[in-house]
């Protein structure tokens, strides 16, 4: 690689790393406890699902209309927003709010046992984990915060790509995994930065890309609702939204959806007027029926007044990518060992970031030729300290 090429890639790596570094450190530090949110929530508030016995609420149990009436009876004046099912236990979650288009901070979540019909009370809240999650998601800035973090994620991906390009000239004379501990602090940091970076590279790429996609979740969902859902429900255009008191039978709607998508398991229902439906439909989201598609959701739009199916079709490719991105980013789909792997690689990422910061702060100021020579030769021209 020519000196000129190294210089260009070095500058790309420098700025694509320096700009997002503080954000990435925050994301790593907050992401670490979030990986174990199931275990932390269970330890602090108890594991509700583990206490229930019976068939999964996604498969069977008491009629949905009965469950919904129970939820609304316990939350007078509210309207239903979501009903979510468990694939593992009878736990049924109903979300209510003051209006069909209620904001997330106005929503209330209630737990029910679909086998017995028992109300299990409000979903437990964990202020500490909620704080960490919101800091990690949008830094308490809403959509602008999410978009900033999404751009930082894309810069992180650029830093990884440019770092990998620079890895080649640096490692020309050095064996994989070499860490020269006995030379200078700078050389040891360079070796650590390269070794940790290249070993965790694939994981960091996946986390960076899926994190960036997740950051655009709200605009992607809005785009799906305003585009695909509007086309699916074109015949309803211009008609006023259905009022909550006119909602028809959920069970009849579920039957209609099951006939359109037989053998699939429901994950949640979006009620009319919310972000996940039209103003006239129950949007019933089903999981894929094969392992490869189990994280992909297919909505069936059922007229909330008549329980007649309007349409059922796969979501657009970008929304499907978003659905696959969530588990890949969170690492919560393969049991505790996978979470431990996530934790170790998050610590490795922190180390890559930290050694990168030290390499930057403790450089010889203003001498880019020296940086290029380090990369080109894989060592420090005149070792110091």
């Amino acid at each position, binding site marked *: 690689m020519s000196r000129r090429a190294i210089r260009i890639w070095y500058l790309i790596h420098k700025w694509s790393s320096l700009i997002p570094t503080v954000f990435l450190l925050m994301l790593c530090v907050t992401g670490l406890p979030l990986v174990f949110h199931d275990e932390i929530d269970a330890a602090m508030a108890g594991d509700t699902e583990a206490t229930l016995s019976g068939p999964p609420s996604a498969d069977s149990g008491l009629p949905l209309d009965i469950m919904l009436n129970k939820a609304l009876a316990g939350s007078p004046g509210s309207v239903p927003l979501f009903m979510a099912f468990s694939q593992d236990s009878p736990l049924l979650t109903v979300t209510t709010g003051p209006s069909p288009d209620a904001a997330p901070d106005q929503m209330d979540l209630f737990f029910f046992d679909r086998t017995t019909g028992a109300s299990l009370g409000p979903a437990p809240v964990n202020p500490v984990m909620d704080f960490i999650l919101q800091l990690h998601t949008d830094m308490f800035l809403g959509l602008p915060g999410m978009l900033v973090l999404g751009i930082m994620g894309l810069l992180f991906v650029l830093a990884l790509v440019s770092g990998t390009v620079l*890895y*080649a000239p640096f*490692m*020309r*004379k*050095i064996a*994989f*995994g*070499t*860490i*020269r*501990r*006995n*030379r200078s602090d700078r050389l040891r940091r360079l070796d650590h930065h390269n*070794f*940790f970076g*290249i*070993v*965790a*590279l*694939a*994981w960091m790429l*996946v986390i960076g890309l899926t994190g960036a996609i997740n950051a655009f979740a709200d605009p992607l969902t809005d785009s799906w609702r305003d585009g695909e859902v509007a086309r699916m429900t074109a015949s309803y255009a211009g008609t006023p939204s259905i009022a909550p008191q006119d909602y028809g039978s959920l069970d009849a709607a579920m039957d209609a959806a099951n006939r359109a998508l037989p053998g699939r398991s429901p994950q949640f229902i979006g009620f009319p007027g919310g972000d996940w439906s039209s103003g006239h439909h129950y949007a019933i989201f089903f999981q894929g029926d094969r*392992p*490869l598609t*189990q*994280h992909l959701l297919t909505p069936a739009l059922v007229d909330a007044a008549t329980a007649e199916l309007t349409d059922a079709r796969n979501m657009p490719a970008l929304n499907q990518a978003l659905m*696959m991105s969530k*588990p*890949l980013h969170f690492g919560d*789909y*393969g*049991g505790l*060992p*996978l979470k431990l*792997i996530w934790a*170790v*690689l998050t610590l*490795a990422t922190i180390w890559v970031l930290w050694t990168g910061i030290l390499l930057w702060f403790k450089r010889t100021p203003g001498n880019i030729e020296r940086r290029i020579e380090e990369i080109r030769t*894989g*060592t420090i021209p005149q070792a110091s300290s």
Partner: protein
Amino acid sequence: MKGSRRRPSAIFAVPLLIGTAMLIGLVLGLTGNGPRDALAWGFAGLAPLTLLFGLLRRAPRRSSN
């Protein structure tokens, strides 16, 4: 040192192996449970094990690099 320069294919051989194992592991875990999860841990676990091995390995002797 000119004679000891390595080609990009040699430089990236091990990283490519670790990265491919990681991606296989992530997809295996995502597409099933039970045995697939166990395979996912094995494949995705190669990267953390490599880091551990690299850190615990004895420091090489001083060289001219």
